[in-house]
């Protein structure tokens, strides 16, 4: 089974949970910018969260089914239709042979995901299907490409209420090994500042803007290049923060003021340009507890999947309408 790409946005790549074990050769983790979206898609299709999906930054595309194929849509919502009929986001659908799936620009957030039943079955490299554009490992999906799917069977017509994460908000951070390079007033000001996501953002990192002075560390232009991890908040020479994302470098010389928790990196990545972001320090112990809760939530996703068929409980005013109608009828 496969999908043929008829139109495509400029920054769509195949992503799974990324690649461990090559930091020693300078190859960073990569993987989906929104890990939760990968798990949601897997839950909707009743398959493993290790399945790869198509990650679409900002803009989707048009896809034709070469055979009947199950799909699911998660992450940043986009306008979606099959042969011109709108279909709901955060749901699984059956795309019949020859039908066209059309996905528009993101309505909120930054990264939408198209999942295939059986997972996107491109050739793995070094243990993962994740494209790593910065490393020139693979490329963006282009018109005429075929997205192959793995072996598959199962149902469609399921939905999942997503966790809201598409408009910025507060990101939990832990102090990291370079936090002490920043003095206490700078750290306090950092936590009190409301930032806006700047225009420069991709899978490597995202720039934040704020009013007032930058956030400088002591001697920051000459510190030793040191290990970087996704979620690190790096200060460039001008004191502007960048949140580093899955395709970040493995080492670098600009100091990092703190690190965003793995469970909050997806909220950072999904923040649209101009979206407001604040930071809140938590301790390592608190962070470990939050991470445990996040992983439990991921494991419970499949129990939250429900049929897409409109349930009366989904229509809040249904009962009152019926009641009023009945009353009017009774008085006539």
């Amino acid at each position, binding site marked *: 089974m496969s999908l043929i790409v008829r139109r495509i946005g400029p920054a769509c790549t195949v992503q799974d949970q990324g690649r461990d074990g090559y930091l020693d*050769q*300078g190859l960073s983790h990569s993987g989906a910018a929104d890990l939760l979206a990968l798990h949601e898609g897997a839950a909707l299709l009743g398959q493993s969260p290790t399945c790869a999906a198509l990650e679409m930054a900002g803009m989707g595309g048009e896809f034709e089914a070469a055979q009947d194929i199950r799909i699911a849509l998660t992450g940043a919502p986009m306008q979606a239709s099959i042969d011109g009929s709108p279909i709901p986001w955060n749901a699984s659908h059956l795309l019949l042979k020859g039908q066209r799936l059309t996905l528009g620009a993101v309505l909120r957030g930054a990264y939408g995901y198209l999942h295939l039943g059986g997972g996107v079955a491109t050739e793995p490299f070094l243990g993962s299907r994740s494209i*790593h554009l910065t490393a020139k490992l693979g490329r963006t999906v282009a018109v005429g490409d075929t997205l192959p799917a793995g072996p598959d069977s199962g149902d469609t017509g399921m939905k999942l209420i997503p966790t809201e994460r598409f408009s910025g908000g507060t990101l939990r951070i832990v102090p990291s090994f370079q936090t002490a390079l920043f003095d206490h007033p700078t750290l306090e000001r950092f936590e009190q500042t409301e930032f806006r996501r700047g225009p420069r953002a991709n899978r490597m990192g995202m720039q934040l803007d704020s009013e007032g002075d930058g956030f400088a560390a002591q001697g920051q232009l000459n510190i030793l290049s040191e290990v970087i991890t996704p979620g690190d908040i790096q200060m460039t020479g001008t004191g502007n923060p960048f949140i580093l994302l899955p395709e970040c470098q493995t*080492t670098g010389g600009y100091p990092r003021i703190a690190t965003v928790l793995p469970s909050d990196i997806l909220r950072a990545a999904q923040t649209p340009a101009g979206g407001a972001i604040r930071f809140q320090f938590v301790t390592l112990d608190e962070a470990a507890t939050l*991470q445990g809760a996040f992983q439990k939530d991921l494991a419970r996703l499949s129990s939250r999947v429900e049929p897409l068929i409109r349930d009366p409980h989904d229509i809040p005013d249904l009962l009152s309408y019926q009641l009023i109608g009945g009353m009017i009828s009774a008085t006539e």
Partner: protein
Amino acid sequence: MTHADPFPLVRNVGLDGMLVTFADSMTEPSNRAALAFRGAMEAEGWNGVIETSTSLASAYLRFDPLTLPHAEAEARLRALLATRDWYAAALPSGRKLWRVPTVYGTELAPQLEDAAAAAGLSATEAIARLSTSRVRVLTIGFAPGQPYLGPLGPEFDIPRLKELNPRVPEGALVLAISQFVLFSGPTPTGWRHVGQTAIRLFQPGRERTFLLNPGDEMQFPAVTPGELAEIRARDEDGTGGAQVEEIAA
């Protein structure tokens, strides 16, 4: 009166990492200690470890904090540190020397003169010194297969740029803080672009994905832009005309 030496330092890297740092500057012993300690961490095979690596003077442990709690990871690292003098460790065996033809200056490497001025040298003198320096792969990082190389002489201890260089090409040789970086792909950088080579350090799909290993040594002899163009034209294996020899143990 003596001061307590704070090194080696054991500190956290975000939620899922610990860093063992052997010095706050790149020295030969601290680099060797990092390489040896990383090997020892790998050999321990602790449950919950995801991967390890090294930077210039640190060894990095990445782990699942729900399987290996921070306090336990730190205790194990400190116990391992106490087992020997890591600064006296030997360099890895099987190292190679790479001589990579390089164009200094010209439009291919437009910040050579700027770097020379920052080092207090004429362009000619800077090229003479840089092209005869033999440097070691101190670590591989920032991008796949990409080495930090050093040390260069103290005159080249020049700061990084305040404004990022928006883009340097693959094979760019850049300079700051008495080190080179040889870029494995096009990227923005805060380092000055002083030389250009034709080497391809990361070749996915080739039998050898990565060319270099930490501990290898490199030299960057000067060639003309015309010579580099010829090398590129006949370069099939991506080594950029490099001459490679084993370093005797």
